């Protein structure tokens, strides 16, 4: 297993992503239900963080809030030191498009678009001129040069997740959110996708927020955080601080 790269103090002091006391409550059948409570979180540029925890502990909710896919009921999220969670939906989408990328457990490819078009989609949203050429390169990089015109329904689970990785890294994001990226795959495919994810992460220097149940995968991150009953705690710090 490769050892995670170290991060510098300056990066910690000037985080790429920061959450300050964020909480999320929703209306339930027996009144309000607290999913997250006063969570603080920081992520430096290029840093990788794994969030683990039992099912229902709020991992995906936290990821959604950090990525601006949902808004917290208390606290705030800052992206590059600017208030992110307080922006409106469109502004958040714009920032996300510029800085972030996603990999989901269920791949979430657009069924009507072929592999090439799926990878082109975020590039086009970002205004990339040679979206096609760039997408093609990334698909070659993940070993799918022979599957460019295939639709998601004709690809295996592992292949679909590779398309999703190509789609995520093609936009050269500063930050990648990965929600159980190996959760829908068998062991062998899961391992291959894990390898590919960290390989690309290292090559591009992208920061990574990884939600996972997979301890092996979590251990490959620089930091591991445990979420339990809506509260976040640090398990280990594998990076050395200068």
């Amino acid at each position, binding site marked *: 297993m490769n050892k995670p790269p170290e991060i510098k103090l300056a990066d910690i002091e000037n985080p790429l992503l920061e959450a300050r006391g964020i909480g999320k409550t929703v209306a339930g059948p027996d009144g309000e239900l607290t999913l997250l409570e006063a969570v603080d979180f920081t992520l430096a540029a290029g840093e990788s963080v794994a969030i683990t925890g039992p099912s229902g502990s709020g991992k995906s909710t936290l990821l959604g809030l950090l990525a601006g*896919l949902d808004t917290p009921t208390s606290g705030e999220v800052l992206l590059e030191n600017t208030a992110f969670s307080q922006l409106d939906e*469109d502004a958040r989408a714009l920032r996300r498009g510029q800085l972030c990328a*996603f990999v*989901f457990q*269920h791949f979430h490819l657009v069924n*009507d678009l072929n592999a090439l078009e799926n990878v082109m*989609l975020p590039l086009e*949203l970002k205004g990339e001129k040679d979206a096609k050429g760039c997408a093609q390169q990334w698909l070659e990089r993940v070993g799918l040069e022979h599957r460019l015109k295939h639709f998601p*329904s004709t690809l295996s689970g592992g292949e679909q997740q590779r398309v999703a990785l190509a*789609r995520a890294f093609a936009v050269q994001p500063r930050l990648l959110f990965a929600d159980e990226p190996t959760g829908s795959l068998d062991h062998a495919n899961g391992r291959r996708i894990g390898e590919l994810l960290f390989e690309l992460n290292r090559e591009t220097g992208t920061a990574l927020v990884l939600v996972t149940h997979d301890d092996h995968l979590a251990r490959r991150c620089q930091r591991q955080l445990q979420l339990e009953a809506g509260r976040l705690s640090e398990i280990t710090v594998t990076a050395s601080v200068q």
Partner: protein
Amino acid sequence: MNKLLRPWRDRAFQILALALAIAGFSLTSVILLQAELEKRFAVRTAEMLGGELVITGTQPLEDTQRALLAATTKDLRTSALIDFSTVLVHKEELLLVSARAVDDSYPLYGDIQLANDRFGPSITRPNGPPPGELWVADQVLDRLDLALGETIKVGKKALTVSAIIRQLPDESAGFYSMSPRVVFNTQELEATGVVGPGTRLKYRQLIGGDLNSITQLSTALRPGLRPDQRLDDVEHAAVRSMGPLRQLTLWVNLAVLLISILCGATVYLATSQRVEQRARLAGLLRGFGAPRRQILQRILGGEFMAVLPAALAGSLFGATFIALLHNLLDWQGPLAATGSRWLMIILAPLVLWLAFALPRLSALVRVPAIDILNRRNASKLLATHVELTAALAAPVLLAGLLTRSLTDLGSLLGLLVALGAGLPALLWPLLKTLDLASNKLPLAARLAVRRLSRRPTLTLPLLAALTLAMAIIALAGQTGTQLLDDWRTRLPEQAPNHFVLNLFERDLDGFNNWLTEQDAVPQPLYPIVRGRLTEINGEPVSRAITKERGNNDESLNRDLALTEADDMLASNKILTGEWHPAPGTVSVEQELAERLGLEVGDKLIFTTSRGSVSAEIASIRSVDWDTFEPNFYFMFYPGGLSDQDVTWLTGFWLAEGDGKRLARLMQSLPHITLLDVNTLLDKANEIIAQASGATALLAVLLVLAAVLVLTAALLGGQTQRGLDNALLRTLGGNRSLLHRVVWLEFLSLCASAAFAATLIVFIALYPLTSRLLNDLPSLSWWQIAPLVIGLVVAMLGVLASRGALKKPALSLLRDGG
């Protein structure tokens, strides 16, 4: 109970239940309405014929025929009439009349309308005159200067004139005859002495009773008929093919077919949604080891129990509605529907559900459980070609069962089936071309097009349903309004309610002055020359027309009313030839021309009181006998009847009032024949009012069913659309882009559907209007209805998608996952 109520929380189920309730309501209303119409048809036809079965002949019935009649008479009612012509003499005036001797059972159907005063109110009598009395048409009083209460001899027997005949129930067709009518009791017939060798008598045996006995008797009688005898029955009577009634039957049948198709389409679309939602349950059950049959039974059983109340409630509302209508319109007797129809009422919506939902739900056991649970190969849950074909055939079969005959709508049905099958073939290349062309389009347009073009199993049924609904609204709208217009034109508000015959040239000024004084609305004047057709192409008619062809045709044995006119009547249509191309030509009515084998170019000679008239046939023309305007077999080129003995015929509308105005006219022109057709007009108006009501009701049901399809179509794909939008937002797409994609998607979908629907409308309109209205289609705003509906649906679709745009992307992605 909770189990039954649970599905109602789902919007797709609500739509499904509403579709079945509307199907139940529409089909029940239509089946009951159809039964009522058939009953009223049969009664009206029997009224016009005089009975359900009528034997006409120049001799009395044979003994064998009497025996047959006696053998079945216990279930039947009979009445015997004898019609003949005779001359009445009073105060040295002579008048040729059509006499009718009736027994005490006459009439079997309907009532006789009488009056005690020339212009007084009508009195209804259920039976004919008692012995010793003579009922006469008003012209008899005028022409013979006779008063009620006086006696007059019919042959050798003096009878007391006791009432004026307004209308006999079996005389509504051909409402003016040349000779006025008198009626007396058969018991006096022998005493009159008019029956003897050489007298031309027409014996009419009227028979009424239940349809089975009538059919049996008719079958038994038919082989033994003499050459002079004719058998008419309700089943085969021409009345069935009469104007508004025929049109209404066709319209009802068409509505049944279209409502079945539309409700079926809604059930199909809504069930598709349900299948998506029930897939997880099916997958889990399969995972737990439940066999396919058990899963299908559980899911199907649950759905069936949930939709059953909706379908039954719809049927119950339909039956209540028709029962209320029955009372409101004062239709006599109980509801006409029999046991088999009630069974059909209960089964029809359920059969519709089974036909459409069963193949859809079966998809749940077809797909491997793991695929369902992992949301893989969701496309396997989509429709197969077999299902789509079944979906197309089911309503056609159902409509066939309900209408009991699809022959009337054969061409339209063929067209619908061809279009249904051909529509995907037509639209698919269009979408594929659009897909290829979209490579150069901006991102939003490309995404919108691809959402449609790359989901054929989702897009094509949606497109077909939208197309069908749009086309049906436009077709129903146009033909419905055209039908109502047609009936309104046929009987305008001031349709002539009086006709005048035997006006002489010298009477015209006085008559016109009277019309002006009374504010009557006049009609054109037609010159009438009485003539008998004697030669065709230089040969006497007896030789020119073979026996088989009809040289015994009634029209050859009597004087015909010949006329000349500049213009053709608006309700007439030239079928072959040309209207009055040159002097010396004549236009002939189509049915008579067919009976006598007359063709354009034939030369005809008529014998008249002044010698003869000759003309060459220049055109054959169809005539609408249901209009309240004079119609003629032969219409000559203007001037063709000069130098003949001419009388004039016209009609006029006169507002209701006392009889003094008409009395003044009769006093100043005592020789004219004045016919009051108000009773007939009222009857015709009543039929048209009821037919219009039924037409409007069916049109409303059709539109409702079409709106349901549109709603179900909007719901279809909403989940997928929400998921796609969430993903786009996650990848950085802003709201404006999402709005553009949704707008363009709906606009492309609705524009394609509107384009196909407009095509269908233009193709179907011709066979539809020619079958239904015997007319050519005209331009109408309804033809752009698909475009307008398309725009509205696109807007509604965008509005319906707004909810999904507002929902946090995370929850959608999680739900979708």
